[in-house]
C-alpha cells in the first residue's frame, strides 16, 4: 500500500439520508446507504473506504431516514478503527433541527442545516460525498487537482459515451476543465472538448473551499430552489469561473470506469452479478485499495457432503462470493452472493441470486434470479424464479425479472 498523506484540514461530509424508494423493499427497514452489498458490505462502506484510502479521517455522516442500522454499522465497524485522540473520527449526525424544523429539502439543505458542524471544525476544505454510490476514488487526487486549478469548487465527473449521458446531470467544460454549464438530463449532451462522442456526468462528489461553500449555501437558502448541489448551488457558481470538473480516475484500474448509483433493484442485481463474474469490473480483492466493513466474529464458511454416488449429497459452491458462517450442506450454489450465516440444505439449488445475512434454503428448494433479504427462510421444495407468471402472483418481481423477497417474509 502506498503511503498517503492525512488531510488534517479537510472535512468529509457523507450525505447518507437517501431514502432509496426505488430499492424498496430492501429499504423498507433501512436507508439506502445501509443496504447490504457484496456479502459483507453495506453500500456506504465503499465511500467510507475511499475516505480512509484517500487520507480523509474527519468524517461526518449526515443521516436522515431509518438511520438506526446505519448508525449501528458505523459505530461497530468504523468508529473503532479511527483514533479520536489523533483527531480522526467518523460521526453520524441525525438532523439536528438547529436551523430548520423540517427534513432536509435537498443535498444542499442537508449541509446548510449542519453549518454548525463546519463552524466548529473550521476546515480549510470540505469534501461532500454521497453515501449511496459504489466506486473507488482517490479524493486525494481530486484535492490536488482542485488546488492546482485554484478552484473554489470542484465536481467529480465520470466520462461516459455521449449516448448514455442523457440520463444524468451533464457538465459542460472548456479545454481547462472549467465548468461552463450544468444541464440536467439533456436531450443533446455537450461533448468534452477534444473527446467527441463523450460527455461528463456529475457524480455528486464535490470539493469546496469552506468559505465559498458556506457563502454559496447561505445564498441558496435565501432562494426558492430545490436546495440541491447539482441542480442549484453549483450552477450558481459557474459565473465565478472558479468551478472545475475533475475527471474521475477509477482505482479499479480497468478499461471501463466503474461508478454506480445503485438506484434500482435491477441495478442492484446487476452490480451484484458483476461481483461474481470471473473478472469483475469492481474488484473487492485489491490490496492496494482495501474495502472495510464491520468485522464479524464468525466461523469460516463450510461445505458439507461429497457423496459422489448416484443420489448422493454434494455441497457445491461455484463462481460465488461467500461470507463467514455460511454452510452449504449438500446443496448447490452457482453465481451467487451469499451474505453471512447463509445456510443451503441438501438437494437445494441456488443460482444467479443474492442471499443476505441469515437466509436459509430448505431441502430440494430451488432459487434462481432472486434477491432474498435478511433472515428469509425458503421452505423445503419451494421454487422461486423459474416461472415468471407464478412468481408475479406471489412475489415482487422487478422489470428485469428478478424476484425480491423482503426481510422476514413468510414463504409457503
Amino acid at each position, binding site marked *: 500500500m502506498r503511503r498517503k498523506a492525512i488531510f488534517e484540514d479537510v472535512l468529509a461530509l457523507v450525505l447518507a439520508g437517501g431514502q432509496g424508494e426505488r430499492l424498496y423493499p430492501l429499504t423498507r427497514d433501512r436507508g439506502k446507504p445501509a443496504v447490504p452489498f457484496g456479502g459483507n458490505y453495506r453500500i456506504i462502506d465503499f465511500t467510507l473506504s475511499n475516505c480512509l484510502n484517500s487520507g480523509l479521517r474527519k468524517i461526518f455522516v449526515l443521516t436522515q431516514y431509518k438511520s438506526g442500522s446505519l448508525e449501528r454499522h458505523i459505530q461497530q465497524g468504523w468508529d473503532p478503527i479511527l483514533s479520536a485522540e489523533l483527531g480522526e473520527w467518523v460521526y453520524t449526525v441525525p438532523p439536528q433541527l*438547529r436551523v430548520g*424544523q423540517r427534513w432536509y429539502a435537498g443535498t444542499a439543505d442537508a449541509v446548510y442545516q449542519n453549518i*454548525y458542524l*463546519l*463552524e466548529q471544525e473550521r476546515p480549510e476544505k470540505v469534501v461532500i460525498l454521497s453515501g449511496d454510490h459504489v466506486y473507488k476514488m482517490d479524493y486525494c487526487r481530486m484535492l490536488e487537482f482542485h488546488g492546482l486549478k485554484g478552484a473554489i469548487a470542484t465536481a467529480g465527473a465520470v466520462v461516459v459515451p455521449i449516448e448514455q449521458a442523457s440520463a444524468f446531470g451533464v457538465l459542460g467544460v472548456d479545454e481547462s476543465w472549467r465548468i461552463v454549464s450544468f444541464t440536467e438530463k439533456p436531450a443533446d449532451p455537450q461533448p468534452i472538448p477534444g473527446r467527441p462522442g463523450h460527455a461528463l456526468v456529475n457524480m455528486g462528489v464535490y470539493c469546496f473551499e469552506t468559505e465559498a461553500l*458556506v457563502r454559496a449555501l*447561505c445564498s441558496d*437558502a*435565501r432562494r426558492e430552489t430545490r436546495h440541491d448541489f447539482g441542480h442549484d448551488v453549483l450552477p450558481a457558481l459557474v459565473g465565478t469561473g472558479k468551478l472545475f470538473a475533475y475527471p474521475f480516475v477509477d482505482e479499479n484500474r480497468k478499461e471501463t470506469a466503474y461508478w454506480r448509483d445503485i438506484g434500482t433493484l435491477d441495478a442492484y442485481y446487476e452490480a451484484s452479478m458483476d461481483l461474481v463474474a470471473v473478472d469483475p469490473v469492481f474488484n473487492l480483492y485489491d490490496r492496494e485499495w482495501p474495502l472495510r466493513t464491520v468485522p464479524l466474529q464468525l466461523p469460516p464458511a463450510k461445505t458439507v457432503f461429497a457423496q459422489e454416488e448416484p443420489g448422493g449429497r454434494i455441497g457445491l459452491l461455484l463462481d460465488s462470493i461467500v461470507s463467514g458462517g455460511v454452510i452449504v450442506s449438500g446443496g448447490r450454489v452457482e453465481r451467487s452472493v451469499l451474505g453471512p450465516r447463509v445456510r443451503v440444505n441438501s438437494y437445494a439449488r441456488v443460482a444467479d441470486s443474492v442471499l443476505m445475512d441469515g437466509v436459509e434454503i430448505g431441502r430440494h428448494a430451488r432459487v434462481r434470479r432472486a434477491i432474498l433479504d435478511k433472515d428469509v427462510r425458503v421452505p423445503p421444495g419451494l421454487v422461486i424464479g423459474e416461472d415468471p407468471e407464478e412468481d408475479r402472483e406471489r412475489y415482487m418481481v422487478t422489470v428485469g425479472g428478478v424476484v425480491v423477497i423482503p426481510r422476514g417474509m413468510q414463504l409457503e
Partner: protein
Amino acid sequence: MAKILVVEDEKNLRLLYKHDIEQDGHTVVMAANAVEGLEAIERESPDLVVLDIRMPGMDGLEAMGRILERHPKIPVVLNSAYSSYKDNFMSWAADAYIIKSADTTELRTKVRELLEGCPGGPPAKP
C-alpha cells in the same frame, strides 16, 4: 413606507432605533427578545428585520435561522455591538452586519438600500 421589526434587548437602544428609523417614514415594531421577535414576524409580517445577536435566551443567529426557514426572502440586518460574530458562518446568511453605534446613519442607510433592493422597489404600504 415599510414596516421594520427591531429585535433588541436593550430598551434604550430600541427607543433610539424606533425614533431614528421612523424619521425615514417607516413604521417600527419592537421585540425585546428573540422569541418575541419570532412571534412578531408572524403577526406583523414586517418588510425587514433588524436583529441583535447577543440577547438573553435564544440568540440572534439562531433566531435568524428560524426566520429564514419560514421567510427566506425577508431582509435581515444583524446589528451587534461585537464584530466577532462576523466570522460566524451562520451570520453569513444575513443581508448585512452592522456594528452598533449611537449614530444610526449606517443602519438607516443599509435599511434603505435593502428595501430598495427588493424587486419592484420599496414595498408600498397602505
